[in-house]
């Protein structure tokens, strides 16, 4: 009896229910978009209403179960304050699945500081996938509707995973972005996207918004936005992103190439990278071990290897010029330095800019 009373008394001390959140009292954002135009930042959040019958059959129903809210301000703190004040419920960012930056914002001077604020916002999920989109992030989020499936919170991550499997986009989260931007090693790369059909078509068929296709889904994911330490400095098209993924040793399973032949490439084993940073112009030796599966006839391996080498070299050169290292070479170079201070003083991105790269591709054909 004494124990029972003690246990009952102890129940009063349990704090789990003290400030319980009811689902209806929360605005759980699943996507957030940030635009920056004419010195004004606009934040848009996509929130499930929990009111509609998502996937009930009618076209409008799935869409209507997600609401968009937006607010503007001179910077992120002001915009988010206004957004919070205008929302009917408490904004909860713990379940954020994706965060979309407009290209203008990701190149702006506010970008780096905003990322700092994000990571120090206690309730914001660091696992949100980062996407940079051409044009408006708000429009991009507005286009984000469940076409196959019911719940966006499930659809968006699985869709991004699928795209990453093809190698056309890199997988990248908010905490990884923060780590790369504030770090002293390699720089990061996130998915490039666009609200499709809005931009002019040009010769590059592997860019978002320029894909020749039809479909209910308006948004397109293709290519990568490469970050420097302050924001986006370079974009890669889908094909270059596939090559980037192979260079990084990312395990992509559905990387089909149409040039120089119709083939599928995958990583046989992690690339072997040697960086000699003892000189002012570092020497980088890369050996790639790739499995090649022909999609039609077996191509000449020597020719494919030479063509790939040239493409890899071009890609690395392009990144060297922009002073970004999304390949992870910095981590190898850092091994030659005893302390962090010496490594930081070496200034890898500056050194990488003038480095001498040798690349070797070893292909193993599968019939």
């Amino acid at each position, binding site marked *: 009896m004494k124990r029972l009373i003690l246990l009952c008394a102890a129940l009063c001390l349990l*704090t789990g229910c003290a400030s319980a959140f009811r689902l209806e009292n929360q605005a759980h954002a699943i996507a957030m978009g940030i635009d920056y135009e004419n010195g004004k930042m606009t934040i848009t959040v996509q929130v499930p209403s929990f009111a509609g019958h998502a996937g009930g059959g009618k076209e409008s129903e799935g869409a209507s179960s997600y609401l968009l809210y937006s607010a503007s301000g001179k910077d992120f703190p002001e915009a988010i304050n206004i957004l919070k004040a205008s929302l009917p419920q408490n904004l909860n960012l713990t379940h954020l699945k994706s965060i979309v930056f407009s290209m203008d914002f990701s190149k702006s001077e506010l970008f780096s500081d905003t990322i700092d604020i994000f990571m120090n916002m206690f309730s914001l999920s660091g696992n949100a996938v980062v996407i940079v989109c051409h044009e408006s992030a708000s429009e991009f989020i507005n286009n984000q509707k469940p076409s196959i499936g019911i719940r966006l919170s499930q659809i968006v991550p699985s869709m991004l995973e699928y795209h990453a499997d093809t190698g056309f986009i890199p997988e990248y989260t908010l*905490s990884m972005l923060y*780590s790369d931007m504030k*770090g002293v090693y390699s720089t990061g790369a996130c998915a490039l996207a666009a609200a499709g059909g809005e931009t002019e078509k040009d010769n590059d068929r592997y860019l978002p918004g320029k894909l020749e296709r039809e479909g209910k889904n308006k948004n397109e994911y293709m290519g990568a936005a490469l970050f420097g330490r302050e924001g986006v400095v370079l974009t890669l098209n889908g094909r270059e992103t596939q090559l980037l993924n192979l260079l990084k040793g990312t395990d992509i399973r559905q990387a089909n190439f149409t040039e120089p032949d119709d083939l599928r490439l995958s990583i046989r084993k992690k690339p072997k990278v040697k960086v000699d940073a003892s000189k002012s112009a570092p020497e980088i030796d890369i050996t790639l071990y790739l499995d090649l599966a022909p999609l039609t006839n077996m191509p000449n391996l020597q020719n494919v290897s030479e063509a790939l080498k040239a493409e890899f070299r071009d890609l690395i050169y392009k990144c060297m010029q922009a002073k970004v290292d999304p390949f992870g070479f910095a981590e190898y170079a850092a091994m030659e330095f005893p302390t962090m201070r*010496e*490594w930081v003083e070496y200034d890898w991105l500056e050194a990488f800019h003038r480095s001498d790269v040798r690349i070797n591709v070893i292909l193993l054909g599968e019939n």
Partner: protein
Amino acid sequence: MPVRNKVAADQKARISGSNLIAFSYCAVTARLFFLIAVDTPSSLNAVLIQLLLGALYSFPAVFSSYFLLKKYGGSLLYGVSDALGSGMCRMLLFAFGLVFLYESACVIRMLTSSAEYATLYDAHSPMLLIPTSLAIIYTVLKGGNGAGGAALIFVRAAFVLIAVICLIEFRDMDIKRVFPVMGPGLQTLHKNAVHTVLYFCMLPMAYFLKEQDANKREPKSVFDKPCGIILLYAACVLTTAFLLFVTVVSAPEIPNLPESRGLQMNMLLANGRSSRGIQLPILILWFSGIFVSAVFMLYMACALVKTAFGTDGKWVELLFGAVAALLALFRLSLKEDALAFSAYAGFPVLFVITSLPVILQIRKRFGGKH
């Protein structure tokens, strides 16, 4: 009555060898890990060097304890009592008890801070502190063998959880994150390694309370032998080194940004901030590790003071538990205070323990009582 027997007769709070070993192994490893991985982020990626430096600095205390254990048939308390005399021995036990008391307040504070993370700062600190402190005091009241037994179970579960974490994280682990191997440089590493000395010295301090079975002729395990303390020390170093290595190679922290380590940790602990598969095993390990650590600190504080004054009764646990909780409540045992305390207390404790065999030899030579 010989001095050593007098002190021994006053012992009211002893703990069996196997339980003490499990208890101190678990608590010291957890405390070392939290100190190095979280509280001293300026070591950047060179946490292993910090640990090894700390282990090197503290080894004399462990070796001195081994010497005394060997000389006094496995009882450190007899050795100290012979070296210092009964009165001084009591004072030393009391001082060590106070060290543990303050440390228990630090660990309770750590536990409530972690709980605050987990609740996204929605729960008030005092409300978290009350049940936490009560649970710790209750466990300590149940006695050292009960708590030690629980620690033994935790050690076994911890290995499984660590294995699960390693399996989940294996693909994301990267040995290159260990480089540059000296991190911020030797000066910073030395400064941070000084903090670990106090926690390594907790092993000999805990051995004061190791129970001696009069009927036992042969030690049950190698840990019951005098060299057990060296093995225990080695086990703590190796386990902490392994945990730190896993932390460094797996977490996407920013090596040049010390505060990023705390950021990653709060993401893992906070409800909904991380969807990584390791969140559950990390949560279990984290909270259980700190809990065992807190119980160990409070138990040691009470037991040492009880032994020093030959008192018994539950009022010591209740009083010390309340003091530790109040210290934590009034924010007198925050991370910065804990670091300052370990920096100031570490080397004096090390010096005292290391000096004991020397004092003993001097007393012998100049006709001291023994």
